[in-house]
């Protein structure tokens, strides 16, 4: 332990502490732009300068030393901070009033904090990169903090972004759509400003609502509810699902359904697929296929392993093809008039919905994907105050769900849901305890062995593409010991998706995961095969898992990406 | 100029400040600061309100301008009847641009919206008196009336 004096206050801290951490303990927040709680020290913005024994140094890089005297706020320090900030502001567009990160921007907040009143402004107007349906990069707004690069390379191991010639950008300055980008959007969560954001499609939604001939239906992904509360100033997970439904009706949705419904359906299809592969000697380990960022990743980096993927479409796309067939038929609605909107925690879902093959219903299966953030914007735009809203039920036929559907939102959830069903199907017994806690939590790779009446199934769960890569290297080498692997592209699973509220730090993600399992625990039905509307769907329409209709509407194939 | 004396007849007229401003402008064609202050005192309203009124109406000017105010209608009917040629002719004749006054302080040239003489477009007014079916040839004679 080392004692240092920060602004005249004596603090004793571990020797590994940076000055920034020591100052925080003494009660002084040292602002910074490039610093991120989950990432490495970047030391790029130089905003965190402090006076250490009379010298100006960055607080994020300096570690404490005995007898150190630190001053975090002197006229000289402030002048230096302002000078460094103005250096960044100099080339930053002054368009806060039209920026997607207005009022949720670290640069804007810092400018206010440091009382910037004037600065030299020489804007370099660079083009916006709109080459993907998922993400928009606005290079003009980049402040060179490097956080996106670290996330893309170190956490996701995608390597679409790099720092070269002092510029943070795509590899070889190529449009994002021509890089290895999997559109997971983790970069958007890391960005302190508006340099990388989701492709906002609010206006398309508003136009659909304004069109009296259109029936606007929506599905809500499992991870959305817990996080959307954060967008409207409520605690994580505190928004009641049925009030959320009421809020969505206020926004103009004609029918509100739940992706949880097709999550349950996925379990029946995918569980049976797994059993079939186990029984009939199919390609193993089988890999889950719900996460479009993950699909993009495997198509790009492990094209030769595509056979391992379950042929199941993601719940979003299963839903899309069913709503314009099964539901339209039952409801007596012209499918041509249905405008199918999905609310997703995910930016890659925008890409998935736009895939050319995703039109098995005879129409675009999903017309529009809105992220949690975009729905948050809509809720704020329409002034929705959830507390005042009478709870409203989901619409029927595709609105019922079980706890198994809910936990799809967290890493390990698909695995746990599958195990709940597979166990009962194989053994014919009721599970004594539906909680498979060994697959829960935020750690990158989790594994378990499950005894199905004598057959031991080995499973693994990975979240973040860096973790996925580890498991895939085993698969590729033929050394994978697993029968079934769940992969979620984003750290923590969908609750940490690229479309989720900003910030999405590990702490935020953990809170959301907890909220997911709390919801699961509260529900009367927690096993997918108990979902009454799923049963009805098989009785009335699909007949059986992996049947002909299922194959047409619920399954797909994958193609290698040649980047 | 004794502004208060000019405005006195309107003093007891509720809301008579607009009439009072008209009266002052009859004498000197625009409203000076002193005139506005005098009006505010006379009508017992804040100066800022008197100023607000003086700058709201297009007939009032708070800037010095020529004695005889020529206003050219440029509303649609006059516009299609050739108001632009009349404007050009006036500018040429007086040697000033729209919005300016002649150096001798005799004329001010201003745009006006419709003056309600649309049976005889294009129309100009001088000190409120309308002249219809104006064209470039007629202008010298009209101006001569104000020599």
């Amino acid at each position, binding site marked *: 332990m080392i004692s240092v004096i920060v602004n005249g206050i004596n603090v004793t801290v571990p020797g590994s502490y940076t000055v920034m951490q020591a100052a925080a303990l003494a009660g002084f927040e040292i602002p910074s732009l490039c610093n991120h709680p989950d990432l490495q020290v970047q030391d790029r913005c130089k905003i965190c300068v402090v006076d250490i024994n009379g010298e100006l140094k960055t607080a994020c890089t300096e570690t404490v030393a005995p007898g150190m005297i630190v001053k975090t706020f002197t006229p000289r320090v402030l002048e230096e901070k302002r000078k460094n900030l103005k250096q960044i502001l100099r080339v930053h567009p002054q368009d806060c009033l039209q920026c997607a990160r207005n009022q949720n921007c670290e640069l804007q907040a810092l400018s206010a904090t440091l009382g910037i009143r004037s600065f030299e402004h020489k804007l370099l107007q660079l083009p916006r990169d709109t080459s993907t349906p998922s993400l928009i990069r606005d290079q003009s707004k980049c402040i060179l903090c490097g956080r996106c690069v670290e996330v893309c390379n170190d956490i996701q191991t995608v390597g679409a972004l790099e720092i070269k010639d002092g510029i943070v950008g795509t590899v070889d300055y190529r449009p994002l759509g021509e890089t290895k980008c999997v559109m997971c959007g983790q970069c958007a969560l890391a960005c302190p400003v508006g340099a990388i954001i989701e492709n906002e499609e609010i206006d398309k939604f508003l136009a659909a609502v304004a069109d009296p001939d259109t029936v606007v239906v929506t599905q809500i992904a499992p991870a959305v509810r817990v996080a959307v509360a954060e967008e409207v100033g409520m605690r994580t997970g505190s928004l009641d699902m049925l009030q959320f439904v009421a809020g969505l009706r206020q926004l103009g949705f004609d029918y509100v359904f739940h992706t949880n419904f097709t999550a349950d359906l996925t379990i029946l299809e995918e569980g049976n697929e797994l059993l079939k592969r186990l029984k009939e000697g199919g390609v193993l380990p089988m890999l889950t296929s719900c996460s479009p960022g993950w699909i993009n990743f495997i198509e790009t980096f492990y094209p030769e392993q595509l056979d391992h993927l379950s042929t199941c479409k993601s719940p979003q796309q299963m839903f899309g093809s069913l709503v314009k067939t099964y539901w339209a038929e039952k409801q007596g609605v012209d499918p041509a008039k249905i405008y199918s909107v999905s609310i997703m925690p995910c930016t890659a879902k925008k890409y998935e919905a736009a895939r050319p093959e995703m039109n098995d219903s005879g129409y675009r299966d999903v017309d529009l994907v809105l992220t949690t953030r975009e729905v948050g914007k809509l809720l704020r735009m329409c002034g929705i105050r959830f507390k005042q809203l009478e709870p409203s039920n989901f619409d029927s036929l595709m609105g019922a769900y079980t706890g198994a559907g809910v936990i799809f939102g967290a890493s390990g959830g698909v695995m746990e849901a599958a195990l709940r069903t597979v166990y009962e199907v194989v053994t014919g017994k009721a599970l004594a305890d539906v909680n498979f806690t060994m697959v829960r939590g935020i750690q990158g790779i989790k594994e378990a062995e499950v005894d199905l009446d004598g057959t031991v199934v080995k499973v693994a769960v990975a979240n973040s593409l860096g973790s996925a890569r580890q498991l895939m290297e085993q698969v590729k080498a033929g050394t994978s010991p697993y029968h079934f692997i769940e992969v979620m592209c984003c750290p923590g699973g969908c609750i940490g998706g690229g479309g989720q509220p900003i910030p999405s730090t590990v702490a935020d993600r953990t809170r959301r995961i907890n909220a997911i399992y709390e919801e699961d625990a509260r529900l009367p039905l927690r096993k997918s095969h108990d979902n009454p509307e799923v049963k009805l769907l098989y009785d009335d329409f699909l007949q059986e898992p992996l049947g002909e209709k299922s194959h047409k509407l619920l399954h797909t194939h994958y193609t290698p990406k040649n980047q | 100029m004794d502004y208060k004396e000019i405005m006195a007849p309107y003093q007891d007229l*509720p*809301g*008579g*400040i*607009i*009439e009072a*401003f*008209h009266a002052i402008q009859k004498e000197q064609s625009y409203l000076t600061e002193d005139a506005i202050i005098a009006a505010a005192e006379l*009508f017992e*309203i804040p100066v800022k*309100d008197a100023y*607000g*009124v003086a700058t*709201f*109406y*297009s*007939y*009032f000017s708070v800037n010095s301008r020529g004695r005889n105010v020529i206003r050219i*209608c*440029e*509303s*649609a*009917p*006059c*516009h*299609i*009847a050739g108001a632009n040629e009349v404007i050009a002719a006036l500018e040429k004749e007086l040697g000033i641009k729209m919005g300016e006054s002649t150096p001798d302080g005799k004329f001010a040239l201003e*745009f*006006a*919206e*419709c*003056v*309600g*003489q*649309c*049976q*005889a*477009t294009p129309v100009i*007014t001088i000190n*409120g*008196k309308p002249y219809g079916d104006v064209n470039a040839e007629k202008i010298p004679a009209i101006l001569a009336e104000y020599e």
Partner: protein
Amino acid sequence: MAEEMRVVLRNYGKIDPLKIEDYINAGGYQALEKARSMSQTDVIEEVRKSGLRGRGGAGFNAGQKWNFAFQAQADQKYVICNADEGEPGTYKDRTIMQGDPHSVLEGMAICGYAIGASKGYIYCRGEYPYVVDLLNQAIDQAREKGVLGDFDIEVRMGAGAYVCGEETALIESIEGHRGEPRFKPPYPPVSGLWGKPTIVNNVETLASVPVILEKGGDWYAGLGAASYPGTKVLTLTGDVVNKTVIEVPTNTTICEVIYDFGGGIAGGKAFKAVQIGGTSGAFIPESLLDTQIDFDSMSAAGASLGSGAVLVMDETRDIVDVVCRIAKFFEHESCGKCAPCREGTMRLHKLMNKLNAGEGSAADIALLNKLGRVMSVACLCGLGQAAPSPVLTTIKHFQPDYNAKLQ
């Protein structure tokens, strides 16, 4: 061949406007006398029954309006004659006041009796100083003759603000303020001039009243179109043979107005467009010429009767140029109080200028449409709500003119 029907202009050109005796000899002030022999409610009922609707543009039933003011309890009420005829292309109120001022005074006095007001104002636009003189003379004569009884009328002069044609802006102006409209409700019949119940009627409306009292509401209701009975005074301007003022029954069609009364297009050219109702009116293409001029028929055709100005344009006219000029008018005349009008009129003009200069794009036209749509429903008063009408209707009906100027 359609024929003029002179109700409002019954004495126009027949009497000396400066001789009250002429007016009285022509039967003037008898309606007022008759009204005063009736109960207030009967007078109002007679006017209501006539179906007379405001001739200033809004088309509200006059009797109903009077009834609101009659019902309102107050120690003082006012009648205001709106003579702030500011719509470009309109001079019918001037014609009425210049030709037959007493018909207006009599109409005001009848209204005053009906609602219980002893004081009237005529708010005459600043562009008509000579009319103000004439009205003052007429009022003096009427006072001398004692025909107005205890009803007093004062003339107030505007000072160049189109927006003062809006009744609450007009009231503000009489009160000596900036002519900015008030938000409504409260409406003037409940709270108007100095917060008192006030009727603001247009010159033409008031000039119609004596005849209605004299011949009966039923008689008037039988004239013209049933939903908007009576006659309408129109002023014909632009590329029409007869630039003149006419009065016709309200079931007359636009075609009849232009060709029968106006003598058709001047110079042997072909018709292109007509803008009716003043500068905020819709542009009407040939295909709609058979529309009747009454309020409801015009509304159904996406147009308005407005003040009754009829601006005819021949085939040579550049619609975009004319609309650009109109947009400048609104930029100049917006009072600046409400944001969509203050900013919107300026943007309409800027965008029209851009298009007119051949620098515009299809996106600019789309933006004009959006802006116009919003202004027409969100502005505080009629000025901002109507300002986009020429733009929107020409984009709709004269698309080729716009396309020809696109970049």
